């Protein structure tokens, strides 16, 4: 036998830590001092208004779907703080790359409620945002937009622009290879992108624990060598602060971040879903205690900056805006038949022109094709 030293064969080669950040607890009490920007009550009120506006949009959309005036709709009830916190941390020239449950953030970015109604009502013009022209439209194929976010961020990098991208997707999306690949590319190229995981605990009927054995979803970042952090996703301050810091880092060339916002989907997956088939009411009820609007309201009230009148005014204004948008959507005539063809290519191919001509000709004789 050869003599050996007593050193163990194994040594540590790397270690990692994930943190969880919360400022505002479910009762609306601050558990830690707010970062400077957020301590300003005006800021808090703006965030609160954005949350209320989002929920108001959601309620209207669900009601419209129920009465057949909107298609299948994915409510963000209970998780508004994730998208509002993230979008409010962005600059106008940044680019927002949402999944399909981030209307709360899209509204902050300047997408109009009418555009959102159009989109969910089945009209492509809803994606032709009048406001944030470079923001991406909703992405339905789960996780596939993570790559687009990285690509847009690479464009910023190549042009040496101090801009950054925020992409949001769900807990389910983190199981997609697309997301892992995007983390990895963004990591190795230090791209200015912040990936926000809106962990609402459910991917339709699949609970978070059946999605991954990972203790946190933030640790998915470790696979790509980038920082990953958890925040209380129902604390809009925590989300905003984390995303703002990550964006600042990204703009300064510091690269990519992953932020897991821990929240909860209080509603059905979509209007086509019946969550009572797979989760019990008690769980949902418990999470109502942690939802983001109530806690921020409690905070503002305790701060002495928010009263019944303020609340009523806000609700009224918001309702008026959303109702008007809904009416404007309902009053919008459907697109002309030609639009099916006109945006397929920039230069209409002869083959498609012939199809268009045929469609127009037959539409001239019958109300709808067929």
């Amino acid at each position, binding site marked *: 036998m050869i003599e050996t030293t007593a050193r163990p064969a194994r040594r540590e080669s790397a270690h990692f830590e994930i943190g969880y950040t919360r400022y505002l607890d479910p009762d609306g009490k601050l558990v830690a001092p707010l970062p400077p920007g957020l301590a300003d009550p005006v800021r808090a009120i703006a965030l609160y208004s954005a949350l209320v506006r989002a929920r108001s949009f959601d309620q209207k959309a669900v009601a419209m779907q129920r009465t057949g005036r909107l298609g299948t709709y994915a409510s963000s009830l209970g998780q508004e703080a994730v998208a509002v916190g993230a979008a409010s941390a962005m600059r106008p020239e940044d680019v927002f790359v949402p999944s399909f449950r981030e209307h709360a953030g899209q509204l902050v970015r300047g997408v109009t409620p009418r555009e959102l109604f159009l989109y969910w009502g*089945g009209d492509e013009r809803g994606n032709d945002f009048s406001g944030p022209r470079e923001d991406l439209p909703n992405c339905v194929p789960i996780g596939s937009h993570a790559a687009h976010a990285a690509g847009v961020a690479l464009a910023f990098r190549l042009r040496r622009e101090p801009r950054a991208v925020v992409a949001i997707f769900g807990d389910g*999306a983190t199981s997609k290879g697309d997301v892992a690949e995007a983390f990895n590319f963004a990591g190795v190229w230090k791209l200015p992108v912040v990936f926000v995981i809106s962990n609402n605990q459910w991917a339709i*009927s*699949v609970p978070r624990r059946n999605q991954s054995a990972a203790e946190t979803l933030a640790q998915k970042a470790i696979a790509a060598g980038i920082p990953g952090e958890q925040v209380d996703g129902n604390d809009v301050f925590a989300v905003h602060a984390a995303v703002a810091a990550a964006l600042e880092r990204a703009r300064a060339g510091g690269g990519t971040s992953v932020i897991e916002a821990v929240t909860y989907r209080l509603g059905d997956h979509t209007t086509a879903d019946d969550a009572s088939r797979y989760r019990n009411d008690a769980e949902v009820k418990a999470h109502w205690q942690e939802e983001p609007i109530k806690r921020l309201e409690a905070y503002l009230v305790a701060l002495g900056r928010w009263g019944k009148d303020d609340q009523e005014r806000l609700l009224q204004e918001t309702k008026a805006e959303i109702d008007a948008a809904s009416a404007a959507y309902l009053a919008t005539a459907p697109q002309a038949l030609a639009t*099916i*063809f006109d945006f397929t290519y920039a230069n209409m191919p002869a083959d*498609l022109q012939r199809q268009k001509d045929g469609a127009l000709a037959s539409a001239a004789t019958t109300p*709808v094709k*067929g």
Partner: protein
Amino acid sequence: MSEINLVQAVNLALARAMADDEKVLVLGQDIGINGGVFRATDGLLKRFGEDRVRDTPLAEAMIGGISIGLALQGFRPVAEIQFSGFIYPCIDQLANHASRFRTRTRGRLSCPMVLRAPCSGGTKALEHHSESNEAMFTNIPGLRVVIPSSPKMAYGLLLAAIRDPDPVVFLEPTRLYRAVSEEVVDDGTALPLDRCFVRREGTDLTLIAWGAMVREALESAQQLEARGVSAEVIDVATLKPLDEATLVASVQKTGRCVIVQEAPLSGGYGGEIAARIADGAFSSLLAPIQRVTGYDTVMPLSRLEQIYLPKAASVTTAAERAMVYA
């Protein structure tokens, strides 16, 4: 036995196959306690347990890949892709692997698996939920591609697909799921997987369709009958491998043919069928083969969806064009 609709027929076939053969498993997103977003797997978890009815994490490539591993080991996985618009990440596993293990290993390993996916439009669904992408699978050797058009067809074809020793892509038109009901005898009888089905006999003209378009073809045949034209309607059912003989024989008889396909025209499977018939029935053809198809455009969002979809009336118009051709 009461009448059931297409999604219930799928459910019935799955339950039957699982009861008959313990190697049959189902897996996919939300197919367990939720019973599938269309309820195709409703009740299976309760009846067959978690080992055989498995909700997966959200990753389509893996649903395909893990099915391959199970199949290589002798299981008969029936995987659900929630919508055919989400099947793309799985194509690598189908084209590079599932379809090839048998030939690559000279028969040592094989992949008896079924990938089910709801397809097609007409339900005012969200983006990417209304795709007719069947053609994408038809040029992959080693695969079978099957699309049922009725509850009975769904029951018999799905049983056949599950029992087939090779990989099958099984596409189910969502707008047929609850559109019609018919009596389906749950006797475990499979339909042949290599056959086109004459759904209605006729002498003047052959209408060829698959999936949701079979209904339009049948409706058109009725319209045509009222106008004195006797249309034969063939349900392709198994697109790959193709039963050319049945198609060609019909057009040899009728001399006229309209192919109906919901997918965009160019590169759709109707081209293959037209090419086969134009060749096989060359000397019998009395008029050019007509194709009634979707446009070469992305399926519009719901507000314009109906404009995109081929309808019985268009089939009838094309058939009349064929009838008067000289």
